[in-house]
């Protein structure tokens, strides 16, 4: 098992390295684009441009430029924004991370609960009315752009009904968990629901498919021949085997989200997480910020992917032989 883990870690590092090179190339080596102007932002003075060129070695060969960029990013950690002059990037990202994590945490709980229950209910009642009904909701859930849903939620909760039904919904923003747990949850409630909807839809559909597939397998027939109750067969045998797919899906989804993929949700609800930060960077074309956020995001995806692979081996005993 240890060999497996270390091999996996090695390939994760390789991928990280490749991503960093790619990001670097995109931002600094795209033909026809002037890197200095990119870094310095839209409204840079010539002096700033010169300084940028010097610091990032833009007159030097490509690999050296790459090295310098990585150096600034990781070692010296003094990559600063040129739009908001002097603001350091790394601390901004680390400050924003807990917010993103809070958002994801609640959404995960909701979507796992809703998605898995819905999938089980649909599979159990396959063919009866409730099955296509649940699946329809699932399809709708995955067809709604998450950010748009957030906007709709905002309209409803902050609009006409704000003073009656939805008076309890705060007007966006974030309250830290350590500060006030109740307010923390209150502020995050609708963002949680909004973000969870998409994933609940996906998981419900996937689980239903997997469960129904697995219920047709030979070992389920054996389980029945053993005289086990249908309930036990569904939960202990079929579901357990279906979870394998769910777990690997889950790992990747969470990885992507932690990396800041929920950016539009954060923006809509005024939560200043990593996604929100990325968005700010995009709006202002603040290149160092964007680079920092992209690397941060990529790191988590790669990490999550590696963790999932290890977890997979733990859950599915068959994989351990191959590994």
């Amino acid at each position: 098992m240890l060999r497996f883990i270390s091999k996996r870690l090695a390939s994760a590092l390789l991928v990280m390295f490749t991503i960093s090179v790619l990001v670097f190339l995109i931002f600094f080596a795209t033909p026809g684009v002037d890197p200095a102007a990119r870094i310095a932002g839209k409204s840079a003075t010539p002096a700033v441009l010169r300084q940028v060129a010097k610091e990032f070695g833009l007159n030097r060969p490509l690999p050296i430029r790459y090295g310098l960029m990585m150096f600034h990013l990781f070692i010296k950690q003094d990559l600063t924004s040129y739009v908001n002059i002097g603001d350091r990037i790394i601390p901004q990202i680390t400050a924003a991370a807990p917010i993103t994590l809070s958002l994801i945490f609640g959404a995960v709980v909701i979507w796992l609960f809703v998605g898995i229950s819905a999938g089980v209910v649909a599979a159990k009642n396959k063919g009866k009315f409730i099955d296509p009904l649940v699946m329809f909701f699932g399809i709708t859930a995955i067809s709604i752009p998450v950010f748009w849903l957030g906007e709709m939620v905002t309209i409803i909760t902050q609009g006409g009904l704000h003073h009656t039904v939805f008076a309890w919904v705060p007007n966006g923003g974030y309250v830290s968990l350590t500060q006030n747990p109740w307010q923390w949850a209150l502020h995050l409630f609708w963002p949680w629901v909004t973000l969870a909807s998409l994933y609940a839809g996906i998981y419900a559909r996937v689980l239903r498919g997997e469960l129904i597939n697995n219920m047709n397998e030979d070992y389920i027939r054996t389980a029945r021949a053993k005289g086990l109750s249908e309930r036990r067969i569904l939960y202990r045998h079929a579901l357990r085997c279906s979870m394998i797919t769910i777990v690997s899906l889950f790992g990747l989804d969470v990885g992507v989200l932690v990396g800041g993929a929920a950016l539009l949700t954060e923006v809509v609800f005024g939560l200043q997480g990593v996604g929100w930060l990325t968005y700010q960077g995009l709006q202002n074309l603040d290149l160092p910020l964007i680079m920092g956020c992209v690397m941060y995001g990529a790191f988590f995806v790669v990490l999550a992917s590696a963790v999932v692979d290890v977890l997979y081996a733990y859950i599915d005993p068959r994989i351990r032989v191959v590994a």
Partner: protein
Amino acid sequence: MSLDQSSTDAVLSVRDLSVSFSTRQGVVQAVDGLAFDVGPKEVLGIVGESGSGKSVAMYSMLGLVRDANVTISGSVRFEGREILGLSDSEMQSVRGGQVGMIFQDPMTALTPVYTVGWQIVEQLRAHNEMTKKQAHERAVELLAEVGIPDPKSRVNHYPHEFSGGMRQRVVIAMALSCNPKLLIADEPTTALDVTTQAQILDLMGRLQATHGSSIVIITHDMGVIAEIAHRVVVMYAGRPAEIGPELAVVREPRHPYTWGLLGAVPRADLKTRRLVTIPGNAVSPLEVPVGCAFAPRCQYRMEICAERPPLRGAGDHLDACWLSDEQRLEIRSTATVRGEA
């Protein structure tokens, strides 16, 4: 065996079992009028081609056919108790606890994510009041009984860590775990190589003697029947063609289909014989003829075969064929002359 009423001491007594499926293309009669008895400690073989309904018959008896479009009728008595029509929860105590089942493909028969020990323990505790520890010990004993080496450590292994033959042994151990009165084996050796086949059949024979259970073994291979069965049911197109003691059916088969089945078995002791094949193809379950199902393929068919022959005979050797004993004798003597019998 009298087919008018069920035997009182039979472990399993089946009368007039019919199973049909309503599909978009029409009604499929998978089993039609099947009847047989299985006595205590007896091995009954059910033999027929693919699609003859042999597996469907056994599955539907135990409520393992989950299709919503199925209709099952007839009488199935297990130890005197009618089990056709029992609710699913009532059947759950019969399955596994009193009737064990072994399936064809050992590679997919066990749940991949649990150890074999866990799966045996699960069955034990579903039907017996046992602690986990007791059940675990019993599982180790069972594995030893079926010939798994080093059972104490292998009980904690996963199914994929066993070879095909070993897995089938585990399945057998599991099926026998609650000392069932009846063991149903659906083509248990078809997926295995010949050597393993012999070992598994041998094992089943021994276990049957020690556990005292009856066995119903479903197969398309007459060799398996000859090896292990006391009595035989030959099925064709969902209908019983011939029933009787194994020796009788093999030495003096009465139904032309049985002749074909036996003729198709390669025999080392007879010289220069062409393998006899039964002309035509297996009948589609959608197009079973009104009269005798085998008539279209039978070279001895007569006019009366347009009427379905009843299952009848003297003593315990029955057949569903209009040929009289004299006619059979004549056919057999000419066949001997031609060197075909």
